[in-house]
Structure formats: C-alpha cells, structure tokens
C-alpha cells in the first residue's frame, strides 16, 4: 500500500474509514465485504475517457467491476473491502488522469463549481487573446506588398506570439494533459489528434516568427491557432453546461437530503446533528422549506409537502399527524415533528437514487458500438493526417503541416460517441422528473419498438378497492336503512370488502349531506366473528329476547340464490335476509383514457389476469379491450407473452410489480406501478413512481422521440466526418474552420439530445387536463 503524502491523499485516506463508506457506497447483501461505490470523475471528455478509467480501475486488485458513463461523468465501482480501499482505486483513477470524487460527497458540488470556473477562465483567456491576435494578423492580410515595413511585420508576429503563449500554456492544458495520459498509457483518445494539431501549429508558427528563413518559411498561423482553440473550448464549455442541465434531474434527487437535521434530545431540547447520526426512532423538527431526512410519520403539525421528484405528483400534498412522509420530499408550509422510521439506504429515496444511478451507467448497445468504432477511427485520422502532410510537402512545408492540422482537428469522434448516451440520458432525466424511473437505458430503445401492451388486471387497471354495482333489498326495506346497517356492521371488520363498504357508505352519507358518525350499535351488544362466513352482532331486546344482525356471505345471511359472478356481501336480521350488495372492482380513473390513447396510437392492448374469467371480461369490456384472458397462472402469462413474441410482436408488460416478476422479466420491456413496491426488488425496466398509469403513453412517445434523435445524431456524425475529412485532406479547410466545425458538430449532437429533456405532458391525452387524485 502506498503511503499518501499530499493533502489530496490525506483527503482520500479519510474515505478509507468504513464509517464513511455508506455515504457513497452500498454494501452487497450477498457478500459482506463487497461494496458498490458511486463516484464522479473529473477530467472526462468523451467515451474514450470512460474506457480509460474502466481499464485503469480494473487493474487495481480487489476492484471487481467498473462501469463509467461518459455522458454523466458518473461511475459505479464494485470492490472488495478485504483486498482494497477506496483511496487505492481512487489513486489509480487519478494516476490515469481522472480524479474520482465520491458521488454523494458534499464536495462534489463545490468541485463542479471550480471546474466550471476554470473552464470559463480558459475560454475567456482564449477568447481575449484570439481577438487581439486577430488584430495583429489583419495588417498582413489586407496590406499590399511594401505597405508595411518588414520590421513592423516582425513586431506584429512577436506580439502575436506573446499573446498566443497564454492560450497554448493555459487554455490548451486540458487537451494536452488528456493526450499525455493517453500517450503514456499507449492509448488513442479523442484529445490526441487535437493536441497534436495545437502543438504542430504553434511550433510551425514559432519557427516562422524566430527563424523566417527556416524550412517552414515566414508564414505564421497564430490567428488560426487561437481561433480553433477558442472554438473548441467554447464547444467543451457548452457541453459542460448542458451536461449539468441534463444530469440535473439526477443531481436534484441526489442532493435532496439535508446535511444536518434538528433532533430532539432525551431532555426534550433540539440539537443539530449530522444526517449520518440519524437513527430509527429519532424525533426531528422540520421547518418549512427543508427536506425530510428520513421516511417517517408526522407526530405534530400539519403541512403540505412536495413529492414531485420522487413520485411525479406535481401538486402539493397535505400531510397531517399520523401521515407518512418520505425522505427527500420537501416540507412546504408548516413546522412539523417527525418520527423517523427508515434512514439511509432503507428509505424509498435511497432506493430511487440507487435505481437512477444504475440506469445512468448501463450502456446502450448502440453506444458500445460507437465506442468500439471510435478507436480505429482515431487511428485512421492520425494516419490520414500524416499522409496529407506527406502529400502536400512539395507545396511548402508550412502549408503541408497546416493541412495535416486541419485533418486532425476537423474529425469529431465525440459526436459519434455522444450521440446515443446523451439522448437517452436526457430522455431518462425528463422521465424521472415526471416520476417515471428508467432502470436500464437500453429499455428506452426496446420500448420504442413495442407494438403490444399487456396489462395485468388487479392493481394495475383496477384499484385495490371495490364499489357497489347494485343493491338488492327485502321488500319494504329502504335503501338508506340498508346502508346504515351495513356501515354499522362493516365498521367492526377488517375484511377488505368491509373496509371498502365502510368507505363507500361514508362517502355516500357525505354526498347526501349527512354529517357526523354513524350511530353505534345499541348498548349491551355482543359481536361474534365466524371466520370465512361473516360477523354477527346481537343484543338484548328491551322487551326481552334477542335481536341481532348478520353481515357476511350469502349463505351466512340466508340470502335468496342469485346468479352473479360478482363479489357479494349480504345483511340479515333476526327475521332473515335483508339486503345484498353486489360489488365490482373500481377501475383506475385514468385507465379508460390510457387504454384508448394506446389503441389510438396503433398499439394492441391485451389483458392477462389471474382472476376469474367473468371479472376480467367485465373490466376488459368497460375498457373496450377485445383480447383478454382470465384464470392465468404466472406461467400461463409468461407463455402467452412468449407466444406473442414468437409471432413477431414486441411486448410491453404493465403490472403491479409484486406477483408477476417472471412475467415482467419475460416481456421486451416492463412497467411496474411503484406505489407499494420494494423498488430494488422489482424486476421491471421502468417504474411508474406515482403508482398511476397516466405517464404510460407519454413515456412511450418519449422513447420513440429518443430513438429518432439517436438516429439523427448518428447520421449527423457519420455525414459530418465523411464530408469534412476529404475537404480537409484536399486543403480546402483552414485550421480555424476545422476547429469551428468540430465544436459545432459536438454541440449540435448535444443540443439535439437536449430537446428530449423537455418535461413530459400528459395533457395531450387527457381532455380533463388534471385528473390526478392526491
């Protein structure tokens, strides 16, 4: 183990304290010494850098796997605590030229700011010097022969040389250092051709300045040099800013938790402690404007919370004493006290973050292809530029070198390797802001190809509750009376049907304007529960004898036989049957619109359910779905999906994510409704965090847009390189134009991708606009 010496190393060594690990790492539940760390890498420019980092880290003993995302500059490192320490592999990454910073570290943000500042400063130096060098170059371009004395020309060249120095020595350093690391590691990176171009232009021009009689003549190219450096830096700077914006959704979620919280001490006073000292059972005070640090229950106060980033629910939600709040949501309006029930990795927030981070580093197949193509492409560019220099040498050494420089600078493999990940990441960011989590970026590609959507029924198309479809009464009994008796009885049972009836009866009374609680049962009553049958209440009659009520199955209540496939619950008194409530499942309010929108878009919609056929038929009929199957076991569902796939269909499966794991895994792309779900256990590719179907159609549309943008980007980078390289080889492209072309090409790709980061709107599909309940 090397001994850390500098302050930076000191800082790294702090990270070797196992207490610090959970802050940026997750322990692997299967192997207890295995940790998965999230880190941000500084100094990355393109996909080749990601590969370099991966290579460097894989060589560290104890590092089990590394995945680095070029578009977000984030990486995930799996390492063994027995064989290595974070400082060791972070040093390995730094040695390769990329500083690794723990992703959840508070320093990461500060560091980003410093990087941005240095970038602005580099651009400013290059820009200012470029303008002044241009001033000194203009006389040489416009003057007739003999207008300017030779010593004046020489003075102008010296002045240009002096002002080019800061550009070459300072503004160009990121290109030089990246190229140097590549050279030392015997690799070819994106910056190598550019750096070569800069050095050769500067050397040729310096020779022209100080040795006008030398082999390269008296011609200087300081104006071209400063200009293309400026354009390149401009492009890099824009890219940096856009990446920050694109990664914004991820960062916004990541940085959601407060650093410190106000906790109640044993004496009842409030103390401010670091979030890492938070434990389950602590009582916290959360003021308006603060974020909740853990999942918990409100003990005091009432407020509105903003869960938009976590569930996609954009409206403020009211939370009262006893309600649950989730970590990472924001307290908007009132001071509250909270008992913490989940902290750290157990919170829903941490699960979401883990999901988003794994999505950011999964490389789509198209991006991997682009990465593989980048290396031979760069080698070809180097060879082509050497060839161009040799071919043009007879026309003058200076000119030949500048043609070679133009070839080096104009090629833009960055556009090629940014094309896919930039677009997918932008789309995933936009989806995340609407509460749709994309677990694997490649899923976006598969979703775009889907032509069949298969829904599970219970909990997906329907809610987990029932409503009364129709009511049968004994002759002479009023509807109100039946409801009143039903509510009395239902209040004493925890059976789902009873709870649904309670809720319905309460709603009905509220709708009729009857306030207050329902009358309780008469004094002296005794409640008996018959499991699987129903509930009986009886009490002594004032005149003697017994009086009672029964609530439960038809047989239990001696209800007249009735042919119905629906769920029923009956009521009886001492004289016999009183009433029967027929129940049906409540459709999700948005289900009808979602299904019809999907059909309108030309997608085939099917229902596969484990429920009995008639119940499935009823739901399918109310949604206008022709193809449905009931009574399916998970195995049946999987076979049905495989049959569809064999018939050439691409299938998306939408389920509640609880019971249909294998089915979700078998579909081409799968959605889970993320309300009651242990997120990390879900096998779905995408999770609808709101637990509602609203965003299904916009997500599908966004995936199609994403693939369109990816294709545009790839086509652009191929066309651009195919057109510009020959032009440069033929000498039609001056170096400054080459720099401008390359910067604009990268920028165009990123800008095009950025169109996907616009927020999703569901309004196009739903005429009522906002039909989302809280």
């Amino acid at each position, binding site marked *: 183990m090397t001994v850390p010496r500098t302050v930076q190393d000191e800082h790294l060594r702090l990270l070797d304290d196992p207490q610090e690990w959970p802050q940026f790492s997750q322990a692997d539940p299967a192997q207890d010494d295995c940790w998965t760390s999230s880190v941000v890498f500084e100094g990355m420019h393109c996909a080749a850098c990601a590969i370099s980092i991966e290579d460097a880290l894989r060589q560290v003993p104890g590092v089990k796997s590394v995945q680095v995302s070029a578009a977000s500059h984030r990486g995930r490192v799996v390492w063994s605590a027995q064989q290595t320490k974070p400082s060791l592999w972070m040093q390995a990454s730094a040695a390769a030229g990329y500083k690794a910073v723990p992703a959840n570290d508070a320093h990461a943000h500060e560091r980003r700011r410093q990087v*941005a500042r240095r970038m*602005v400063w580099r651009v400013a*130096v290059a820009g200012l010097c470029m303008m002044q060098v241009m001033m000194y170059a203009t006389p040489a371009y416009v003057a007739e022969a003999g207008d300017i004395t030779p010593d004046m020309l020489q003075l102008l060249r010296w002045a240009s040389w002096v002002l080019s120095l800061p550009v070459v020595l300072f503004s160009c350093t990121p290109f030089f250092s990246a190229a140097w690391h590549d050279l030392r590691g015997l690799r070819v990176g994106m910056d190598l051709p550019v750096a070569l171009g800069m050095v050769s232009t500067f050397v040729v021009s310096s020779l022209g300045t100080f040795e006008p009689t030398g082999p390269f003549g008296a011609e200087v190219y300081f104006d071209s040099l400063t200009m293309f450096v400026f354009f390149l830096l401009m492009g890099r700077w824009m890219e940096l800013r856009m990446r920050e914006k694109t990664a914004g959704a991820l960062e916004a979620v990541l940085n959601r938790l407060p650093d410190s919280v106000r906790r109640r001490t044993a004496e009842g006073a409030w103390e401010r402690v670091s979030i890492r000292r938070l434990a389950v059972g602590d009582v916290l005070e959360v003021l308006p404007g603060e974020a909740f640090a853990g999942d918990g229950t409100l003990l005091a106060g009432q407020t509105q919370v903003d869960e938009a980033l976590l569930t996609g629910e954009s409206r403020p939600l009211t939370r009262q004493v006893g309600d649950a709040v989730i970590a990472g949501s924001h307290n908007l309006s009132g001071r509250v006290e909270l008992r913490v029930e989940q902290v750290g990795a157990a919170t829903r927030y941490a699960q979401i973050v883990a999901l988003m981070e794994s999505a950011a580093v999964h490389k789509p197949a198209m991006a991997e292809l682009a990465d593989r193509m980048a290396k031979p492409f760069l080698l070809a560019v180097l060879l082509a530029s050497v060839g161009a220099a040799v071919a043009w040498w007879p026309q003058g050494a200076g000119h030949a070198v500048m043609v070679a420089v133009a070839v080096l600078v104009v090629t833009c493999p960055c556009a090629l390797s940014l094309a896919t990940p930039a677009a997918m990441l932008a789309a995933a960011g936009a989806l995340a802001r609407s509460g749709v989590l994309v677990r694997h970026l490649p899923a976006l590609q598969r979703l775009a190809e889907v032509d069949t959507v298969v829904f599970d029924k219970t909990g997906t198309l329907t809610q987990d509750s029932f409503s009364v479809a129709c009511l049968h009464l004994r002759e002479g009994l009023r509807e109100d009376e039946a409801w009143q008796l039903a509510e009395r009885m239902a209040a004493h049972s925890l059976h789902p049907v009873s709870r649904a009836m309670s809720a319905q009866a309460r709603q009905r009374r509220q709708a009729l304007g009857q306030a207050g609680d329902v009358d309780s049962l008469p004094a002296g009553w005794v409640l008996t529960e018959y499991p699987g049958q129903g509930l009986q209440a009886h009490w002594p009659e004032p005149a003697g004898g017994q009086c009672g009520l029964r609530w439960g199955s038809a047989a239990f209540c001696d209800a007249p036989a009735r042919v119905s496939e629906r769920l029923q619950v009956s009521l009886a008194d001492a004289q016999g049957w009183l009433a029967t409530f027929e129940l049906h499942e409540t459709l999700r309010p948005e289900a009808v619109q979602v299904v019809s929108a999907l059909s309108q878009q030309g997608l085939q919609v099917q229902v596969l359910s484990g429920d009995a056929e008639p119940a499935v038929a009823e739901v399918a009929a109310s949604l206008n779905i022709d193809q449905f199957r009931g009574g399916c076991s998970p195995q049946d569902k999987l076979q049905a999906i495989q049959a569809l796939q064999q018939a050439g269909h691409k299938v998306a499966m939408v389920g509640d994510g609880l019971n249909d794991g294998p089915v979700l895994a078998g579909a081409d792309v799968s959605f889970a409704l993320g309300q009651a779900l242990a997120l990390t256990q879900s096998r779905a590719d995408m999770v609808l965090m709101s637990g509602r179907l609203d965003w299904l159609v916009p997500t599908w549309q966004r995936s199609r847009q994403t693939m369109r943008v990816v294709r545009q980007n790839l086509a652009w980078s191929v066309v651009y390189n195919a057109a510009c390289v020959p032009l440069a080889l033929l000498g039609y492209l001056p170096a400054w134009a080459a720099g401008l072309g390359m910067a604009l090409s990268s920028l165009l790709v990123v800008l095009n991708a950025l169109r996907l980061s616009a927020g999703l709107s569901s309004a196009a599909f739903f005429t009522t606009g906002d039909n989302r309940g809280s």
Partner: protein
Amino acid sequence: MDILFLLIPLSVALVFFILCALWWAVHRGQFEDIEAEGERILRND
C-alpha cells in the same frame, strides 16, 4: 508610424491587464448564476 513600435507592445500589456481583470471577475463568481442576478431586481427583499 514610429509610434506603432510603442503602441503595439503597449496593446500587448493592455491585454494582460484586461486578463487580470477577467481573472478577478471569473474567480469572484461574477459569471455564475447570471439568471439569478437578473431576477433579483424583481424581488422585494
């Protein structure tokens, strides 16, 4: 025209002076959060 022999070196010096001013501005954070500064005038507090 001889004055140019003085003015050109002077212009080089001037560029370095402006660079110093820019350095100060960049590292004081003058170019960060530009939108917020524009919005600040619209706020009451």
